């Protein structure tokens, strides 16, 4: 009886948390106006994502891709010779700040996550799996003043070779060894790591091409996926191709 009452009491306390956190009316209106503006933009742009690019930008991007292709074509030809890029199935794509090139698998789409100009995220059609390619790995250090640091670049610049860079990254990402990182695979000589935290697992890789570091990861947005299932999937093979194809411009 007492136990039942305690359960009821806890339930009541939990219910009391409902709508304890609310937004004031001004803020609600601000968000609604923003929402309506974005919907309007979508209606007028149609085929693009919510923050669509102007046509001139899009055209210049296409031009930039062509120029970049000409510039890096010797390397690409080499990669194609090695069979690393299946040119029939993937399209090349460059990031917004036009500093690197990678592949966008067929039927995958770019995601607009406000991730900044140095990162590309794309997902499969079902939106169950996404791949992120980035030149930065930022952390906000919360001290007196929040400071943003690009750990990827910092560690790269402070390392004498790839192994040292890798050690520094793993040391940092595993929170000085508190989370267990496991090397599960490799692409050429670039290792792929996984680790589990809470209910989730992470797969990532640190790549250095032409003296430039990259962070590439694959994420699953479906609770039913296990690490093994993901590694057996065609998406994982695409992830490896992305690692193999990412190049600075």
């Amino acid at each position: 009886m007492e136990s039942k009452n305690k359960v009821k009491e806890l339930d009541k306390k939990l219910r009391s948390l409902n709508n304890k956190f609310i937004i004031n009316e001004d803020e609600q209106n601000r968000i609604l106006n923003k929402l309506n503006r974005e919907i309007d933009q979508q209606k007028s742009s149609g085929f693009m994502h919510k923050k669509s690019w102007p046509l001139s930008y899009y055209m210049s991007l296409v031009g930039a891709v062509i120029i970049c292709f000409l510039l890096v074509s010797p390397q690409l030809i080499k990669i194609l010779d090695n069979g690393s890029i299946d040119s029939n199935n993937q399209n090349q794509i460059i990031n917004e700040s036009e500093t690197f090139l990678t592949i966008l698998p067929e039927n995958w789409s770019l995601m607009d996550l406000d991730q900044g100009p140095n990162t590309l995220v794309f997902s499969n059609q079902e939106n169950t799996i996404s791949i992120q390619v980035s030149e930065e790995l930022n952390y906000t250090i919360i001290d007196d003043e929040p400071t943003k640091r690009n750990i990827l670049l910092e560690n790269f610049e402070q390392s004498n070779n790839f192994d040292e860079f890798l050690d520094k990254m793993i040391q940092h990402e595993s929170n000085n060894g508190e989370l267990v990182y496991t090397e599960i695979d490799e692409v050429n000589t670039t290792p792929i790591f996984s680790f589990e935290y809470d209910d989730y697992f992470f797969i990532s890789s640190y790549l250095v091409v032409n003296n430039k570091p990259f962070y590439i990861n694959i994420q699953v947005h479906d609770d039913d996926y296990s690490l093994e299932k993901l590694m057996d999937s065609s998406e994982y093979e695409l992830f490896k191709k992305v690692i193999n194809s990412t190049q600075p411009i």
Partner: protein
Amino acid sequence: MGNEKLKNINELYIKYNNDLYNFIFLMIRDNEQAKDLMHDTFLQAYKKFDSFKDENVKSWLYKIARNLTIDYIRRRKPMSFFFDLTDVHSNIKGTEQIVTLNESEKELYLALAKLKRKYQQVIILRKIKEFTIKETSEILGCTEAKVKTNLLRGMKQLKKELEKEGYHHGI
């Protein structure tokens, strides 16, 4: 057609924006991000509106919000997860929200934040938002049996956390 859709989304926004914000905030404990994700939920709802069928509209919105929130959580860097759980007290962004809670609610809120996500979600939906088992399973995209199991385990864990903090009032 487009205007009708926009009108519907606006009506849904007026009715559910705070409800969804509250749900997202409880999941991520970040005021600004919760607002962004609530906004994204309605934007997504607008995009998907044509494929919306005979579902319960509230559950449908929660499902979108939950998926966006989980995506956001997963996209955050691992270190953010670590900070989250090791020092919940100092890492709640939007702490102005917490002062509206009384002492026992604050304890409960912080204990909830320490649970695994799968337990948090099911407790928030079932016990705080008072969705039925069936609705909860639809929102989470899992079986009713899984909801029941996670709820049982989650509540057990929650009591343990509360006891650990020395909070015994009414539990």
